[in-house]
């Protein structure tokens, strides 16, 4: 049924205002959703850019972040800020441990380039199974009013405090990461390793340490995405990482593997395409539209939006 | 036989080749020399189809091959080796050569699946030929070794054999002497001459002019993407531009 029929009695002006209102609200929805996707994808793309592996444990890290935050709030009665830090610390540590246990042993030898990815699948299966053993398969949520349910009415648009916090935190983290990468000594080291690990090693950069720091940072960002998603969407369970990982991969591909700006933009594009396809096409075709778009962008720009196609390496 | 006409190549704003022109005559050993970074390998990459030039044309036996894909250029009869050896390390020596012979095979997937006589005779015939080619570079006794287990010099020879296996009219050889000691270099140059005598036209890149001075009839000199001299070794040697840009530095 078209919106027109609902409004037909009220007059043309109102139809127009109604449409604009809905659009603005959907825009806000898309921004909130897209920024979570972006935050999740940044960690994922960071690992790919620096360690050159596709880590399929990132969804699990996301889930662990959400549970760590939940426990911090329910057992330790921490506030929002400390809970986010706890989640990031826990998820970051897990990221570091996964690197230590599953990826590092495979780094030095010559092996199939997909072997580390399979190792991260092993980790993901293990951790998910343990989480299910500990928490069961059912969903949990943060306590009611953990974040006040305040809504802000910006003109015709309603945004909850939480949505604003999520958008703010996501963008803040992205800016922090980009600044760290470009302005600090460690950031430069990380970029040098991402560019060419052999040259970086020759220049005296402790490559292994860079890998560890990257793994920790990426994990922490995944954990932040996890707790924020957990607070906003109230469904924390052992398998929550699956759909997120799936979308995260799409985002990273869209933006260009290993590119942080790409993850940001890709996350927003996916958020917008999901929301807007529901709003203006049909919710039946949401995933088809989103992934069809991905497919199309790849045909036009095979390396993603910010990916370097360049000349074939010879 | 090969005409390189006014090739220009830009890499993201940087001009790597600027109007390179030269000709390789049939049956010759042609030398393309110049200091490191002069753009020699880029010329090879353009001729073999791995790179597209920004401007200019490559004519081979009268046909324009400028924008053909690499496999089509190989089919025209141009083969090459690489400066940084690119053999198929996990495959055996024999298989490496057989890959080189890829376009000489013609049996169908059905012939493969049903083991038809056409497949068997073709495989048998060409395997024998592959052994012959390996013996040309004295590697026939290691035919079933994995290529990665060969010595450095052996791998260079294998790469040469694999390039020959495509049955080329023109063979592009990229710095064959890189990383070799003088004795090995001399042996290799000998082999190149042998190959040339069998009727293959050869174009060889070298940054050390002395190495190929003795075997080339004609030499072109590149410096910073520009052709600064062309002629017989003696002429080139006396060219002041060459001495300044290149020989002078070598001392």
């Amino acid at each position, binding site marked *: 049924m078209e919106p027109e029929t609902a409004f037909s009695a009220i007059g043309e002006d109102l139809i127009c205002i109604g449409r604009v209102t809905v659009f603005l609200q959907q825009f806000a929805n*898309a921004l909130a959703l897209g920024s979570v996707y972006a935050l999740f994808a940044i960690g994922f793309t960071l690992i790919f850019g620096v360690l050159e592996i596709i880590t399929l444990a990132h969804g699990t890290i996301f889930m662990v972040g959400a549970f760590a935050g939940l426990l911090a709030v329910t057992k330790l009665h921490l506030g929002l800020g400390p809970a986010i830090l706890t989640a990031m610390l826990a998820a970051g540590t897990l990221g570091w441990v996964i690197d230590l246990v599953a990826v590092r042993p495979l780094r030095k030898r010559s092996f199939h380039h997909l072997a580390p990815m399979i190792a991260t699948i092993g980790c993901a299966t293990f951790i998910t199974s343990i989480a299910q053993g500990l928490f069961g398969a059912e*969903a949990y949520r943060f306590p*009611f009013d953990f974040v006040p*349910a305040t809504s802000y009415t910006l003109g015709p648009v309603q945004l909850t405090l939480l949505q604003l916090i999520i958008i703010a935190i996501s963008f803040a983290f992205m800016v922090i990461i980009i600044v760290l990468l470009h302005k600090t000594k460690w950031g430069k080291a990380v970029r040098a390793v991402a560019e060419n690990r052999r040259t970086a090693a020759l220049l005296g950069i402790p490559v292994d340490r860079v890998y560890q720091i990257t793994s920790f940072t990426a994990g922490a960002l995944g954990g932040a995405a996890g707790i924020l998603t957990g607070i906003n*969407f109230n469904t924390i369970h052992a*398998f929550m990482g699956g759909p997120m990982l799936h979308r995260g991969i799409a985002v990273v591909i869209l933006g260009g593997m290993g590119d942080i700006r790409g993850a940001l933009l890709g996350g927003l594009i996916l958020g917008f395409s*999901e929301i807007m396809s529901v709003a203006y096409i049909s*919710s039946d075709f949401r995933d088809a539209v989103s992934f069809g778009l991905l497919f199309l962008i790849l045909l036009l720009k095979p390396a993603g939006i910010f990916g370097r196609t360049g000349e074939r390496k010879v | 036989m090969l005409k390189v006409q006014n090739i220009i190549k830009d890499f993201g704003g940087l001009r790597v080749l600027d109007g390179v022109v030269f000709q390789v005559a049939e049956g010759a050993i042609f030398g393309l020399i110049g200091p490191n970074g002069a753009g020699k390998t880029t010329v090879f990459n353009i001729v073999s189809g791995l790179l597209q030039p920004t401007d200019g044309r490559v004519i081979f036996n009268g046909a324009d091959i400028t924008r053909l894909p690499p496999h089509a250029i190989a089919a025209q009869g141009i083969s090459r080796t690489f400066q940084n050896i690119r053999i198929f390390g996990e495959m055996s020596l024999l298989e490496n050569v057989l890959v080189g012979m890829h376009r000489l095979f013609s049996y169908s997937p059905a012939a493969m699946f049903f083991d038809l006589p056409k497949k068997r005779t073709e495989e048998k015939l060409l395997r024998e030929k592959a052994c012959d080619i390996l013996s040309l570079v004295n590697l026939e006794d290691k035919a079933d070794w994995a290529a990665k287990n060969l010595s450095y010099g052996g791998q260079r020879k294998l790469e040469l054999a694999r390039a020959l296996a495509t049955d080329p009219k023109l063979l592009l050889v990229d710095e064959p002497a890189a990383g070799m000691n003088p004795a090995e270099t001399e042996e290799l140059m000998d082999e190149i001459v042998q190959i040339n005598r069998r009727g293959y036209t050869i174009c060889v890149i070298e940054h050390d002019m002395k190495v190929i001075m003795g075997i080339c009839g004609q030499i072109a000199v590149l410096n910073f993407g520009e052709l600064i001299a062309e002629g017989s070794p003696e002429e080139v040697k006396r060219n002041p531009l060459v001495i300044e840009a290149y020989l002078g530095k070598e001392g």
Partner: protein
Amino acid sequence: MKLPGKALVLVTAIALFATASPAAEIRIGVAEALTGPVAKYGVPIRNGFALAAEEINAKGGIKGNKIELIIEDEQGKKEEAINVFKKFIFKDRTLAIFGPTLSNSAFAADPIANAQKTIVFGTSNTAEGITAIGPYVFRNSIAEADILPKVVGVAKKKLGLKKVAILYGNDDSFTKSGYDVFKRVVEQEKLQVLTTETFAKGDIDFSAQLTKIKNLNPDAIICSALVEEAANIILQARKLGMPERIRFIGGNGFNSAKLMEIAGKAAEGSISGSPWFLDDPSAKNQEFVRTYTAKFSIPPDQFAAQAYDALYIMAEGIKAAKLSGNLEKDRTALRNALAKVKNFKGVGGLFSFNENRDAAQKGRVLIIKKGKFSLYAE
């Protein structure tokens, strides 16, 4: 860390099931999803069976014979369900089988049990056509088609509904079946459908659909969803400023304490339907809820209740059947006896099988008031 203790208990439990098997035991296979995402349904089902078996055995079993449950995990995957069913039929030689958790797996595994003339009794399969697989297939899970017409009818009458919006999960057979029924009922009741929106399993953000619906200003939102999604949908709707006047109407999927746990106050006034509900004041149900909660430290849901009743229904059948010790004959005898079970009094009220071995049970319309399910209409 809770892990080692819990693991130990589970391992011993499994060891007990595996070793304690003296002669006169009635073996029944339980194939449910105990790991993986589907485990959130499979585990309560397993608990329901375990509690019922414990009670029956504590009272001396059935005619002195104890019930031995053999519990296997089928992960919610169809191949696994087939493997487990075959293990029960051929290796463990069970008298009957409960499960599997999902209708999808049932379509794959039930034909095998039916072909071997072994009873398969589903407690959570709601898809159409399950019992049509064959004469050995039973279920006590009541299909959405049996409840939803009543729910919508009651809601329409009491609330004076005219315009509704529909929201459902389109990639899940349970929620899709629910939608199909809703669609039919809404047409019969001559309600105007302003929009039909969908979501996918695992979605967490429903803001786009809800914004669209909110703008169309319906009288109610008809929602075919599983409990986690339903709770989140209701919660997000209220956050987007959807007035409480707009009620949510759902089916079996709403029927879990999780709905209030996740949606909290937002769930108030939501209407659903089911034969069983947690806060049903009947003594039998209160006793069940109390012992279940004490044993598993989580209140039962509809899955647990239906499994609990199912084992008692099976026990009725076993009591009535003349068992000879010949497994093949006993399976058939039990099948014939089970089909005759009538007016069994369970926690979900009076239960009988209809001629298609489906549940012939009265659904009740429920409303959430003060954080509890209460009766809206019988």
